């Protein structure tokens, strides 16, 4: 097989075997290049790539699951610095992972270029002349037909042509043979495949470098306009610039969920839908869109996805002086599939002391033997259940903090008279007075929120086109069977009247084909064409 032959010298380095020190720089370069572009190296690199991808699926990755990664780091204090040095929290962006695939790509280019040249010549070459001893080929048959050699040759050529073989033009001394070859496109398919791998990588890299991905939690009724300051989290590509962001904006008018109240899927949410009003740029016309899972909204090059939802209880905190210190919907984050959620409220303006609430939200509260639990995600009986902290909530020192975390280090937790932590359980409409004249807390209502993700992924068309091409090439490469067929005729040796002895052989150049079937089929076809009814012998 041509590719194999071409690679073999590389796999087995020069047998002349001078010592390495005697290689001059150019030779060394050539040697390294040949090693790098050999089949064996490609194979080893592929296996390395597979191996290198493994840790990323075991250790939580910053970019995939930042929360998990942080938790992991907290639990493994000794390993964390080592892993961090090795880039194990960001395997797919790490230098050693890049090293493997860059090497593979270099190897790939080094492989494609010479092979393309080689193929370019091979694709236009005529089929080679028949080997002298056809009977030495693994799949070979020899039989006698009652026809003249010319008739046999002509029929064979016609049959082969019909099967889209390329024929070697008859030359001097080869009058009694036919050489045919087909499946030239296999190699083309293979080259196309390998080339497309590069295209895919380019597309993928474009997405990673030029694109961005940002998420934001929006309450029902809230609006959003696409600029950096509006995002809760934002992951830009390393070559991203903010002026690529398109100036659209939208409002979340409403959010609906259907809850399954019966059947085995009971409690599951179904059919989330966020009604949006959007416009592509300030001053443009408003349009509406029902944003659903699997149905992103496309605006220009950007896409808006619905990726999550939850509840924001509307809580009002009053200070001891009766003044409202905090009021509004507060996003609570779901902890499990029943939308049992966790959140904090920070009423920093409360007088005489700042008040912090931390606790849970039950969309459908129930209690079983005094143990509170949440029935399902539908907000049939919403209850907030929070502990109360006062004093220094850590905001004075000016460090930025997550709105989902209460800094309790220097705070005082309020307690009941029996010394156990004070817990407020509030249903909608309830107000509870805090002890010591600190103020009061009211649970007004519940507002749903949605989490939308906005992303721009340039190059995704290129990547997609690349894989599709790769698949086409792959199919060509795997299913086109390159084969050669040779046929030689001679007057039958046993002197039979007008009989012709036919030697027929086929060779599969991909190593996977079943040439015996090819030979059989051709033999039958030729006999059939010569003698529509007669059996061959």
């Amino acid at each position, binding site marked *: 097989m041509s590719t194999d032959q071409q690679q073999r010298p590389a796999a087995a380095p020069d047998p002349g075997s001078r010592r390495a020190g005697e290689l001059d720089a150019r030779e060394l370069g050539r040697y390294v290049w040949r090693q790098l572009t050999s089949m064996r190296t490609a194979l080893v690199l592929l296996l390395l790539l597979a191996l290198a991808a493994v840790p990323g699926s075991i250790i939580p990755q910053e970019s995939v699951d930042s929360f998990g990664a942080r938790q992991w780091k907290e639990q493994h204090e000794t390993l964390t610095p080592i892993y961090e040095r090795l880039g194990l929290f960001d395997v797919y962006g790490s230098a050693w992972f890049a090293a493997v695939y860059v090497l593979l790509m270099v190897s790939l280019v080094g492989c494609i270029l010479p092979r393309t040249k080689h193929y370019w010549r091979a694709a236009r070459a005529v089929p080679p002349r028949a080997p002298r001893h056809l009977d030495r080929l693994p799949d070979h048959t020899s039989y006698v037909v009652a026809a003249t050699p010319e008739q046999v040759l002509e029929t064979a050529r016609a049959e082969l042509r019909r099967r889209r073989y390329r024929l070697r033009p008859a030359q001097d001394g080869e009058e009694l043979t036919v050489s045919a070859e087909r499946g030239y496109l296999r190699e083309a398919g293979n080259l196309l495949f390998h080339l497309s791998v590069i295209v895919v990588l380019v597309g993928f890299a474009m997405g990673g470098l030029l694109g961005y991905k940002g998420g934001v939690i929006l309450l029902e009724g809230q609006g959003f306009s696409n600029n950096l300051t509006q995002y*809760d989290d934002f992951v830009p590509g390393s070559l991203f610039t903010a002026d690529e962001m398109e100036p659209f904006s939208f409002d979340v008018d409403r959010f609906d969920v259907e809850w399954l109240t019966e059947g*085995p899927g009971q409690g599951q949410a179904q059919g989330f839908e966020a009604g949006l009003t959007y416009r592509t740029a300030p001053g443009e016309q408003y349009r509406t869109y029902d944003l659903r899972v699997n149905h992103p909204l496309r605006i220009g090059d950007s896409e808006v996805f619905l990726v999550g939802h939850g509840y924001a209880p509307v809580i009002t905190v009053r200070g001891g002086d009766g003044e409202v210190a905090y009021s509004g919907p507060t996003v609570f984050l779901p902890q499990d599939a029943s939308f049992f959620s966790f959140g904090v409220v920070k009423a920093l303006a409360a007088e005489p002391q700042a008040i912090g609430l931390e606790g849970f939200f039950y969309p459908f509260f129930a209690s079983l033997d005094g143990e509170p639990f949440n029935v399902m995600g539908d907000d049939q009986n919403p209850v907030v259940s929070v502990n109360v902290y006062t004093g220094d909530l850590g905001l004075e020192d000016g460090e930025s903090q997550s709105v989902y975390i209460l800094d309790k280090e220097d705070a005082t937790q309020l307690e009941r008279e029996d010394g156990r932590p004070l817990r407020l359980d509030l249903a909608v409409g309830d107000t509870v007075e805090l002890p010591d004249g600190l103020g009061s807390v009211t649970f007004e209502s519940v507002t749903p929120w949605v989490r939308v993700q906005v992303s721009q992924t340039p190059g995704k068309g290129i990547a997609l086109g690349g894989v599709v091409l790769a698949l086409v090439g792959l199919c060509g490469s795997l299913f086109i069977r390159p084969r050669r067929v040779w046929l030689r005729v001679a007057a039958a040796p046993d002197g039979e009247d007008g009989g012709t002895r036919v030697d027929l052989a086929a060779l599969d150049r991909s190593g996977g084909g079943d040439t015996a079937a090819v030979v059989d089929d051709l033999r039958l076809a030729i006999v059939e064409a010569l003698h529509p009814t007669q059996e061959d012998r």
Partner: protein
Amino acid sequence: MVYFLALLAHLAEWSLLRKVPVEATAEAREPVAVGAGAPLDPPPSATPDERTTERVAMSARLGLLLTVLAAAVHLVALVARGMAAEPARVPWGNMYEFTISGTFVVAALYLATRKRFGLAWMAPIVVGVVLALLMVAVIWLYQPVGPLREALNSYWLVIHVVSAIIATGAFTLGGIASSLFLLKDRAERRGTATTTGYLARVPSTAVLDRVSYRMHAFAFPVWTFAVLITGPIWAHEAWASYWSWDPKEVWAFITWVVYAAYLHARATAGWKGRNAAILALVGMATLWFNFIGINYFSTSSMHSYADAAVIAPAEVPVVD
């Protein structure tokens, strides 16, 4: 609804039961065949006595018939499972359903290609594997019929999962051929190859290698289609990112790379045959690990069909 559940469980069990006799007959065939030669390609050495040959042929036919029947019942069960959900849907919503669909594909592919590639010798193994997996599915993975989770509700699901399952089935058949190749190859190397027993009745290593290659060559593009085309398209629609290095994606990618290495190995001097077959088995291991293992090991996978997606808390710094 409950009625349908019961019906389903019964159908699943029934398809199991149907397979038991298949196994039994297939197994019964083995001792009988020892020394007498296989029904389809008898080793030239033995001169089978008539009665045994007949019995062997009979049990082979019976086995085939029962396999076909079992596969048909299996299909009916699958369809029933899909119809039982409300609204009717494709039966690929959870692990249980994936496994029963996957095993069906293994059985169906085996039946479809057994003529073409002369796979009769594979019967006991294929049926055994299918049976074992079905048992695992029914015992550990069973889940009552429910509606699809929202993110799964897309026609990409159908395309993606069908192709993934087909590829899995074909890779599995290829893997079976590769493991037989390794066994037989080892027996030949050690000179312990016998003229009787199951190994003697499977075709030569060359044929095994070719069957394995054909299966892999079929499965690989299908897998490429499933994992690298429809998967990302669907992921893009549902999760806003076409490739996010989710563990399931990573392992699908690993599987893909290993099989690419297998295809390379077959064309590389020194890696042909044994090493290639080992790679094929590594590929199959990663495939099934991904299919079953990841769901238990990984908590972060968005593919964990068992749980509804819970949104990871976003880090939001307060600026004040």
